[in-house]
């Protein structure tokens, strides 16, 4: 009955159909409720709990005593907290500075078509098979000053104990974290680099751009979203990096590498000062929230659009 002599009215008609199909039933909020409740009980309620506990004194046995701002005034005058925050920051920056460039280069390399690439990629993946605890224990023994590499490979270590100084211990933490997680981050970059349209490179090659210029002007800008995702993982990982410190340096020498999550654990489960530990934990929450809001703004995750768009 409807005779479409030109294509225009037809497409208009279709567009209206798409906007309001009569029978399209959308899922209600009820679908999200079970998961939401679960998340509330195990993540959001504890978050409120830790804020509340930070205003109390509590040894874990009797019930918590409300002490107002006591913990917080102690927190802001605590030189150990200041040192922990500083070391946490140094580790975060160190980890990103070491891991990001290597992961990008490795990921882009692995996305290419070199000879032996498949075999090497399979080997490069291997550290991911070890848990953080396993990795840290392995490296602790390898770097042991008496029986490990430092006692046998003099030219590299100069006979010194890598865990003997603060700088050495921090370097060890960065080394081991990088060794474990660069394979993961380079996988992220490999996936992203693969999906860069090949035509961009062909166009650049026709314009006479060399390998370096193609990398700087095409590859890097196209990897922007992945850089943000990867940094988010690194920042959150850095703020929870407790097991690696416990097993590699145990916060030492002294309290030199006692980063915030570690010193929070010690305060709570070694000295049973749950109130003050909650203040440190609340501070950790604040840092994580600020970092994530900044990164989310950068990435545009919150716009709820398909990741296909903009590429």
């Amino acid at each position, binding site marked *: 009955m409807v005779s479409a002599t030109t294509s225009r009215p037809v497409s208009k008609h279709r567009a209206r159909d798409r906007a309001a199909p009569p029978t*399209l039933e959308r899922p209600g909020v009820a679908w*999200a409720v079970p998961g939401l409740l*679960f998340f509330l009980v*195990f993540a*959001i309620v504890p978050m409120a709990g830790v804020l509340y506990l930070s205003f109390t004194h509590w040894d874990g046995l009797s019930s918590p005593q409300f002490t107002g701002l006591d913990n917080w005034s102690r927190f802001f005058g605590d030189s150990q907290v200041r040192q922990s925050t500083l070391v946490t920051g140094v580790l975060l920056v160190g980890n990103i500075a070491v891991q990001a460039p290597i992961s990008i280069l490795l990921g882009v390399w692995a996305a290419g078509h070199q000879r032996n690439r498949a075999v090497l990629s399979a080997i490069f993946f291997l550290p991911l098979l070890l848990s953080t605890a396993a990795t840290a224990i392995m490296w602790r023994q390898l770097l042991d000053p008496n029986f490990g590499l430092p*006692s046998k490979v003099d030219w590299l270590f100069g006979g010194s104990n890598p865990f003997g100084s603060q700088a050495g211990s921090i370097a060890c933490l960065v080394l081991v974290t990088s060794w474990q997680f660069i394979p993961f981050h380079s996988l992220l970059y490999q996936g992203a680099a693969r999906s860069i349209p090949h035509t961009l490179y062909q166009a650049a090659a026709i314009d006479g751009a060399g390998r370096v210029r193609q990398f700087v002007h095409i590859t890097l800008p196209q990897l922007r979203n992945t850089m943000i995702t990867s940094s988010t993982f690194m920042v959150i990982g850095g703020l929870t990096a407790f097991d690696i410190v416990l097993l590699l340096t145990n916060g030492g020498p002294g309290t030199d590498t006692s980063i915030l999550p570690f010193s929070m654990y010690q305060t709570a489960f070694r000295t049973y000062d749950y109130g003050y530990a909650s203040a440190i934990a609340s501070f*950790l*929450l604040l840092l994580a929230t600020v970092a994530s809001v900044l990164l989310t703004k950068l990435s545009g995750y919150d716009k709820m659009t398909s990741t296909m768009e903009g590429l």
Partner: protein
Amino acid sequence: MRTRPNYLAGAAALVWLVIIGVPLYALVNTAVQPQTKYTDKGPVSIPSTVTWDNFHTVVDSGFLHYIWNTVVVAVATVAIVLALAVPISYAVVRGRGWITKGVFRLFLLGLAIPSQAVIIPLFLIVNDLGLYDTLWGIILPTAAFALPVSVLVLSGGMRDISNELYEAMALDGAGPARTLLTLVIPMSRSAIATASVFAALQAWNGFLFPLIMAQSEDTKLVTLGLYNFVSEYGANVPALLAAVLMSAVPILVVYLFARRALVAGLMGAGGK
């Protein structure tokens, strides 16, 4: 178009091979050495004698039970995460209104909650539920903290399903439940794989929850077993590293048989 080989990248890849390979060689080499030889020669030597004694020591200490516990925790975590995150993501992607938007934002924010920071109240909750020192006391918090990443990954995957397909389902008279089962889940297989790999690895790597929520031999996971070996076998480095090596066996098996799925799953976390 032929490109000349990139020698610089090749050299850098070889350097990286040494950095990855030497520690792994030392790990395997040490694990098969008698203790006296290790003390003498150190971790990086040419193996002259190979012994399986270290693995016997580890197995005799009940390590296989820890591995079994970890596998149970990982499987249960993945099951719970998928059962909850798939419907959440479906509601977030296809639902309308400010509430579903709010749900998404909540999980986005939840991404940043370090499990570390809420461990004290979480310990109280697990205690109150009577789950202290049970595997459930480890599984439930692990699943909760794997939810945000899973929702992010799954809703990313579901958003790529085109609207026409939903309309076709609606024309067939399918309600939300049938649409989810016959369209959304099959179409977001790769996102589901990514979320599963992530949740499983989080359970596998978990250290804090098993440390705080459990204490007995029966509920010990691999990571905690390793931690205890450090003090038990302090001096017996070959046995300790044999335990480290054994702890990787289950994932190694997964890697050998499902390498593509594992690698693609991890890669998927980076978005497109």
